[in-house]
């Protein structure tokens, strides 16, 4: 298959997926235990994990942060810091126990037999070395190729991973590539010596949705063609459903369930898997009532847990759960570590939501516009890196016309550079628009006098994405929630303020003792709730949620989303919900707007957009995002967007999507299409629709 300078590398014999135990596994992990010595004591990151990988198959390790999935992968590669980590158990690969090998022997395996691809493409390549050199290195080290041979192979690899113009790319540097391209380079490096196994640790988490799809398709393609086994580590159940053959679910360092894809998704037998599947917002599901969230927080890894680690949060826990459960076979051929999986199989246990259900807010009959954006534009000048620092103009938002109706949740989605974050900032008056106007309650906010503008600041609040930098590390929770009231003098007395603080904390689901804590003592989900409480302190009418749940774990996301919906009903709030996760947006929004490179592509009510997407970009976006349903995924056509997202410094002429659009023609480049109402309430900016 791969042919260069006379030496031919045969692909490993392609392998049909077989059920466990029949074929000899390529990798066999048994009783894996990993402990770290930290300043807080001994942390057991992985306990008694077992899994096999057969030649040629794709398996997924799924879990949230702290589940131990990355640590398990790093221990296979022997990349954990030797100084303060201890790994026990056995990792059999190709007949050898990797844990018994010394460092020198492990080096012959790394990059040669087993490769690893990491999460952050932006920082995983050495900035001062050419990518050619970085690809050639493993070839020279492991295969002893001469420079000429290695360069030839490198060119092959570069074109194999879909990077155009491979010869000239040899001498390029990483900073000249986008994130998606750098990840392709990482894949090329991973494939260089034709390994038997590739481990990909959250390979697409840091990439845009359409680029994610490209990279994952590429990985699946290549590994299938070359007979390489693939371990994908992810928290995204959609990716698992679309790509994996088998899946291993991890929680708090332990394996809780494992098996083939279909039975795991259709008939989960462990409460955590059930809860996870139910709490993930789904792209393909219409108006639902509350997300079934999993209550509580993941356990503290430094504390020893007797018994089932999930028991604390499990709605089905009983007394015996204080004993450690073992992985047992279930009725559907999977294995689950739960004493009650039989009862689950019999359908006796139904997942209960923490609080009762309720409909998501729907649009009022006669909508009134609370916020109106007219021809809103924001450009700013950027030093275009490099030698002369030439100034370039970035059109972050261009001629945006949008209305947000009182009481609704407008979801705003798009990929990098689409301008959605900028819209939020303009609405919050953190940045000033270059052109156009913002009207709130009918009045242009930049024409307001001081008192009215102060009123605007009252009415419009924000919840930020990063739970770490959105709270002042020097203030307690109570101080932060109380401060808006002090600054605006909204309450009569200190008691009145503190009463309100208590009630706000209660409303966002925080226990009263949280009030005296500092941010570094809280979890991500708790910090986000504090941010919400702070935003509510002034009784706002409109809240900008800027990726408010993006940084949270899946099971915590559900909690916060439910909270936001409840609060909206309770306080009659209007939301602008900015996000890149289409499924979350679908769940929480009443209407959805799609942006690309600063312009509005499509605007429609929620169900209309997801069921009837008209703009080619929206369709591509929806196709690219995988859904946690293996059956559905198998039937969906795989349509992947071509090319890279253009840089906002250099947007295409005419329709900004024309460079990647499957329907594009010459007319599309002639002028910028304006959004037209193609169906009632459904606006599309495309001349082909």
């Amino acid at each position, binding site marked *: 298959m791969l042919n260069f300078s006379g030496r031919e590398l045969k692909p490993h014999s392609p392998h049909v997926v077989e059920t466990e135990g029949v074929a000899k596994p390529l990798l066999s992990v048994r009783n894996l235990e990993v402990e770290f010595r930290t300043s807080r004591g001994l942390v057991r990151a992985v306990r008694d994990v077992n899994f096999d990988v057969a030649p040629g198959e794709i398996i997924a390790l799924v879990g949230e942060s702290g589940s131990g999935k990355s640590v398990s992968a790093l221990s296979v*590669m022997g*990349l954990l810091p030797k*100084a303060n980590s201890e790994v026990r158990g056995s990792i059999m690969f190709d007949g050898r126990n990797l844990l018994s090998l010394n460092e020198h022997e*492990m*080096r*012959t*395996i*790394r*990059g*040669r037999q087993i*490769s*690893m691809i*990491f999460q*952050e493409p932006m*920082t*995983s*390549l*050495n*900035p*001062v*070395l*050419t990518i050619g050199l970085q690809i050639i*290195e*493993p070839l020279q*080290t*492991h295969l002893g190729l001469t420079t000429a041979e290695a360069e030839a192979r490198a060119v092959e690899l570069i074109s194999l991973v879909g*990077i155009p113009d491979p010869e000239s790319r040899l001498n*390029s*540097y990483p*900073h*000249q*590539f*986008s994130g998606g*391209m750098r990840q392709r380079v*990482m894949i090329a*490096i991973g494939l260089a010596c034709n390994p038997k196994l590739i481990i990909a640790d959250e390979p697409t988490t840091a990439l845009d949705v359409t680029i994610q799809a490209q990279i994952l398709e590429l990985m699946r393609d290549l590994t299938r063609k070359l007979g390489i086994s693939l371990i994908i580590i992810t928290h995204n159940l959609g990716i698992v459903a679309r790509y994996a053959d088998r899946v291993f679910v991890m929680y708090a360092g332990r394996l809780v369930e494992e098996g083939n894809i279909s039975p795991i998704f259709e008939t989960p037998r462990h409460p955590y898997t059930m809860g996870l599947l139910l709490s993930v917002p789904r792209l393909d599901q219409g108006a639902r009532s509350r997300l079934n969230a999993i209550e509580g927080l993941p356990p503290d890894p430094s504390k020893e847990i007797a018994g089932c680690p999930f028991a604390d949060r499990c709605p089905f826990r009983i007394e015996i759960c204080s004993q450690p459960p073992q992985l047992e076979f279930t009725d559907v051929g999977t294995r689950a570590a739960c004493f009650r999986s039989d009862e689950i199989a019999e359908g006796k246990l139904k997942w209960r939501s923490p609080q009762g259900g309720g409909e998501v807010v729907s649009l009022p009959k006669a909508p009134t516009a609370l916020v109106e954006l007219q021809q809103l534009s924001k450009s700013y000048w950027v030093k*275009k*890196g*490099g*030698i*002369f620092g030439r100034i370039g103009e970035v059109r972050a938002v261009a001629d945006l016309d949008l209305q947000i109706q009182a009481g609704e949740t407008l979801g705003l989605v798009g990929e990098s550079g689409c301008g959605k974050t900028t819209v939020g900032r303009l609405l919050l008056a953190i940045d000033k628009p270059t052109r156009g106007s913002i009207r709130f309650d009918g009045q242009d906010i930049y024409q307001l006098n001081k008192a009215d503008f102060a009123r605007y600041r009252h009415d419009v609040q924000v919840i930020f994405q990063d739970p770490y930098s959105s709270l002042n590390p020097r203030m307690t929770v109570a101080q932060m929630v109380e401060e808006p009231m002090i600054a605006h003098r909204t309450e009569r007395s200190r008691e009145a303020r503190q009463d309100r603080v208590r009630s706000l904390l209660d409303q966002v689901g925080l226990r009263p003792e949280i009030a005296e804590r500092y941010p570094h003592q809280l979890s991500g989900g708790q910090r986000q709730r504090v941010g919400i409480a702070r935003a509510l302190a002034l009784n706002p009418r409109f809240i900008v949620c800027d990726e408010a749940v993006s940084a949270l774990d899946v099971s915590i996301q559900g909690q916060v989303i439910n909270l936001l919906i409840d609060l909206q009903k309770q306080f009659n709030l209007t939301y602008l919900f900015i996000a890149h996760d289409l499924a979350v947006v679908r769940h929480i929004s009443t209407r959805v707007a799609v942006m690309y490179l600063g312009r509005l592509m499509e605007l429609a009510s929620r169900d209309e957009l997801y069921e009837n997407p008209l703009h080619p970009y929206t369709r591509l976006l929806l196709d690219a995002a995988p859904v946690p349903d293996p059956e559905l995924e198998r039937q969906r056509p795989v349509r992947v967007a071509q090319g*890279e997202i253009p*840089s906002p410094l250099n947007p295409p002429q005419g329709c900004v999507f024309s460079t990647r659009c499957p329907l594009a023609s010459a007319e599309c480049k002639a002028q910028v299409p304006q959004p037209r109402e193609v169906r009632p309430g459904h606006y599309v900016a495309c001349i082909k629709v």
Partner: protein
Amino acid sequence: MLNYIAYRLLLTIPTLLGAAVITFFLLRVIPGDVVAVKLTGDGAIVSQAVIDAERARLGLDKALIYQFSDWMLGLLQFDMGRSMWTGRPVIVEISQRFWTTFQVALMSTAIGVLIAVPLGTLSALKRGGAIDYATRIFTMAGLSVPGFWVGMLILIWLLQSYGWQPPITTIPFISDPAGNLSQLIWPALAVGYRFSAVLARIIRSTVLEVLGEDYIRTARAKGLVPRIIIGRHALRNALLPAITVIGLEFAFLFGGLVVTEQVFNLNGLGKLFVQAVANRDFIMIQGMVMLFAVIYIFANLVVDLLYAVFDPRIRYGTAEA
């Protein structure tokens, strides 16, 4: 690349201008009359006529704008006026002493770099080990002990062990290299020790930082041998910031050798500067401050150019695919 050199060179012009302007006004900010202060500085009683004559002689009675243009024009011709103390041209006084200071600065820098680079690197690579511990003590001490005191200790040792005393005049390198080196090695060692302490700490810190970067993890995952990981991947990134430190610290030595020259009785720029300060020789002070600024600006220039050579991010900018 040539463009960048040209651009960078052009950029130094406004910086030099700025330095000239500030230096000029620096010494016009003195309360009272410069000349009067100088002449009466030690309690001498001087008549107004003498003061006025002196002012006229030094050209300080002209309007500020004329003085400024005189200064600027003079700079272009390398003329910084005449010393108020010796009456000789400032530029002559400086050039007589420049090379001594330059040589000591160069030698100190060389010693500092030769010690710090291996020490800092090893200390980071074997973090927590014996070498690291020893290095940290060494560098801590080097930062804390006054350079001139180390010089004095060296002199005491030399005197007591070898009966050697620093010569009255500095032996030029050209006429007697051995003698010159044997004279200048000692102040270079004293200053070099401190230099190496500063540099070793910084190198240790950058190497540690680089070792924690993602691309080092990638290099390990590729199965590369440690020698390549450290030599090719880590050091090339870690030593970049060290270039800046070395360059700027070298520039600082021109003014910073002040006290060391006093101890070793070297007739260098530092000694001249101290004399100027002690004698309130404002014209000399002005000229020397300008000199120090120029040296610093050029050191900056060289550092930037070196960066452009070694850091592809600067050479090629962000031309995305």
